[in-house]
C-alpha cells in the first residue's frame, strides 16, 4: 500500500506538472518536446525501450558540431566559463536539395543556383533565435585560388505547399576578405540572421531558399579576373538559440550575477547578435531597478 500510495502521488504530481508545463513530461516521439534530453530519461526510468529510430547526420556537419562542442565545453561536459555568447543551444540542419541549376540560364542570364529546404521541426517554442548562419564546408576537391572575393546571393522561396508568395528580394552577402578562403579554413559561416529572424520568430516549420555563390579572383592579384560561379557543397543552416525553459542553463545570466559582463563591445565577440545585446541590456536594466 506504501508503494501504490507513492505511485499515486507521483502520478498526481505528474498530472499537476503536465498542466503547468506540458513539455516537461515525456511526449510521444515525433512531436516537438521542449526538452530533448528529458523524455528519453523518463523512458529509461519507465524501462521503455531506448529512443526512436534516428536519421544518420551528415558527417561533415557532425565534425563541425564536435569542434563547436570542444570549443564550448570541457571533456567532462561542463560549459566553459570563458563564454562571451548568450546562447545555450546551437542547432545544425542539413538541407534537402529541391532543385539545381547547374549552368548560367541563357534566357535570364541567372547564375547557377541551388534550391534548399530546411525542416525546422526540432526548434521548440521556448527557444529564442539569437543568430543564424549558412555553413559552407570546403573540401579539397574545390580548387580555390589564393585570393578570392565572393558574394553569396540568397532568395527566400515559399514551399509550394503553403501557397503564399514571399517578396523575392535577393540578399547578397559579400565576404569581407579573401582570408576567409585560405585553404586551412574548412568552414565559413554566412550570417543570415536578418533574413531568417522573422521566419523563425513566426514559428515557421520549414524554410526554402535558393542560393548562388559567385567569386571573383581579387582584381589586385590578377587584372584578368572575372566573376565565375563556384559550385560548392550545399550549405547547412546553423541556428544559435537561447532556450528559455527552466531545464536549460542560463550561463550568461549567472555570469551576469557573478561579475558584470565585459563592457567593451569587442570583448563580447562577434557571435552576440544585437537582439542578444538588447536582451542582456534588458536584464541589466531590470537588475538596476
Amino acid at each position, binding site marked *: 500500500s506504501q508503494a501504490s500510495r507513492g505511485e499515486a502521488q507521483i502520478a498526481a504530481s505528474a498530472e499537476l506538472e503536465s498542466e503547468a508545463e506540458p513539455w516537461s513530461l515525456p511526449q510521444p516521439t515525433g512531436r516537438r518536446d521542449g526538452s530533448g534530453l528529458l523524455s*528519453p530519461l523518463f523512458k529509461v526510468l519507465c524501462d521503455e525501450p531506448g529512443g526512436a529510430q534516428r536519421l544518420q547526420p551528415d558527417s561533415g556537419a557532425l565534425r563541425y558540431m*564536435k569542434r563547436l*562542442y570542444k570549443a564550448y565545453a570541457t571533456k567532462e561536459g561542463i*560549459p566553459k566559463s570563458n563564454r562571451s555568447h548568450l546562447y545555450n543551444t*546551437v542547432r545544425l540542419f542539413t538541407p534537402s536539395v529541391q532543385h539545381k541549376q547547374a549552368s548560367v540560364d541563357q534566357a535570364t542570364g541567372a547564375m547557377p543556383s541551388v534550391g534548399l529546404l530546411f525542416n525546422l521541426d526540432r526548434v521548440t517554442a521556448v527557444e529564442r533565435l539569437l543568430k543564424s548562419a549558412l555553413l559552407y564546408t570546403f573540401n579539397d576537391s574545390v580548387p580555390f585560388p589564393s585570393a578570392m572575393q565572393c558574394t553569396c546571393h540568397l532568395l527566400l522561396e515559399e514551399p509550394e505547399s503553403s501557397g503564399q508568395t514571399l517578396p523575392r528580394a535577393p540578399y547578397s552577402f559579400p565576404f569581407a576578405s579573401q582570408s576567409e578562403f585560405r585553404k586551412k579554413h574548412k568552414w565559413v559561416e554566412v550570417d543570415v540572421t536578418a533574413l531568417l529572424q522573422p521566419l523563425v520568430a513566426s514559428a515557421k516549420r520549414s524554410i526554402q531558399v535558393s542560393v548562388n555563390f559567385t567569386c571573383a579572383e581579387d582584381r589586385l592579384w590578377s587584372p584578368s579576373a572575372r566573376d565565375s560561379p563556384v559550385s560548392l557543397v550545399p550549405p547547412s543552416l546553423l541556428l544559435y538559440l537561447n532556450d528559455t525553459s527552466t531545464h536549460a542553463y542560463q550561463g550568461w545570466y549567472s555570469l551576469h550575477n557573478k561579475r558584470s559582463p565585459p563592457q567593451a563591445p569587442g570583448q563580447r565577440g562577434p557571435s552576440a547578435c544585437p537582439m542578444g545585446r538588447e536582451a542582456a541590456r534588458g536584464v541589466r536594466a531590470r537588475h538596476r531597478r
Partner: protein
Amino acid sequence: GEETVSSELQKPLASFNLSEYFKQFLFPQNECELHDFRLSFSQLKWDSWIVAPHRYNPRYCKGDCPRAVGHRYGSPVHTMVQNIIYEKQLDDSVPRPSCVPAKYSPLSVLTVEPDGSIAYKEYEDMIATKCTCR
C-alpha cells in the same frame, strides 16, 4: 587503543602521523559527502544519439549526517530539531536527516535528433557539486 598506539610508536617516527591517526576518531567514517559515479551513455543505450560527452559523472551524496550539522553543512536549525526527535525516538515515523545535494553544475550535451539534425544544448542542474543534510 593503547596497544595500537604502543605498536605504532615502535615504528620510526617519520612514518607515524599522530594527527592522521586521531582524525579517524574526530569524524564518523561514512559521513555525508560527495561520491563519483562515472556513467557512460552506452550503459543507457543512448550512445546512438548522445555524441558528447562520452562519459558523464552526475556524482551523488551519501553518508550519515552527524549531529552538529549546522556549521559543517549550513543546515537550518530544523535539521537539528529533526535529529533530536529521531535520536530521542519521540516519533517512529520521523527519519534521521538525509544527505542530499545542495548545489549543481550544468552539463553540455551534443545530440543527434530523430530528423538527423544535430543539437548542442546546455542543461541546468545535471552534476551535484555539494552535499548537505536536510
